[in-house]
């Protein structure tokens, strides 16, 4: 019970915080994309998918184990052996994504792994997408002249969840909603 609650807290809160923070950091580093978000209402949809691919909140799914012998890419993983799934690495697979290290919100066929896959596909994916789309759009539209105070920001040391400890942003004023 306690471990389920801990999982829900982390999965439901911290991942989205990191998605929004990593997203804003990426937007500040790509001012032309930030400008586009201000003027194109539907742009947030594709933008968030590319942010999910390029800067995912969850980099590694550790503590898995094979429930039977499985073969992946010519290697057999024996039943019971531990597995760590490197989602963020899969998201930069050059065989799946041309110019994988380039941040490109116009990317089509963006089959990223950031919500994992199969029957345990992230339960909160629709909520996370909506939160990130709304939050980033509002920040882009309402903050006048936003700029990073530290780039790169300080990161938490976790190899699993990726995100800054905090992201300090200065701005001139806030537009009304």
């Amino acid at each position, binding site marked *: 019970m306690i471990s389920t609650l801990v999982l829900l807290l982390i999965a439901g809160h911290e991942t989205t915080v990191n998605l929004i923070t990593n997203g804003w950091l990426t937007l500040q580093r790509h001012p032309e994309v930030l400008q586009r978000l201000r003027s194109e209402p*539907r742009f947030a*949809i594709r933008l968030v998918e590319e942010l999910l691919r390029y800067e995912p909140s969850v980099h590694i799914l550790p503590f898995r184990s094979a429930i039977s012998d499985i073969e992946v890419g010519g290697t057999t993983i024996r039943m019971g052996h531990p597995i760590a799934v490197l989602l963020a690495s899969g998201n930069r697979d050059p065989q799946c994504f041309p110019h994988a290290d380039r941040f490109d919100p116009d990317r089509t066929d963006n089959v990223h792994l950031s919500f994992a896959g199969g029957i345990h596909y992230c339960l909160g994916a629709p909520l996370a*997408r909506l939160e990130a789309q709304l939050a980033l759009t509002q920040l882009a539209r309402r903050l006048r002249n936003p700029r990073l105070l530290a780039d790169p920001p300080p990161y938490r040391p976790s190899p699993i969840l990726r995100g800054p400890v905090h992201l300090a942003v200065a701005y001139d004023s806030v537009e009304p909603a």
Partner: protein
Amino acid sequence: MRVVVDLTKCEGYAQCAFLAPEAFRMVGDEALLFDPAPSAELGEKVLRAAAACPVQALQVDLADLPVPPPAETVVAATDDRLRREGRIVVAGLWKAAT
């Protein structure tokens, strides 16, 4: 607006049904009922649904082209356009295998 679902890709994740329930609906666990010509007001929801598909099985054409009537026959309930005019696809491989 026209919507096409690639049934060789669709695996029944149902993300589209969460994001645009007016245009996409799961029938049981394995079949997706969808509207091939959703109304223009649903544009944003349908785009969200297409972007969220984990296997990118949805193609959306926003150009307002004439749409041929669907060939499939679906039993229509009164006032249920999706049931009357929708198309159904059976979700693919991993569902079938599990």
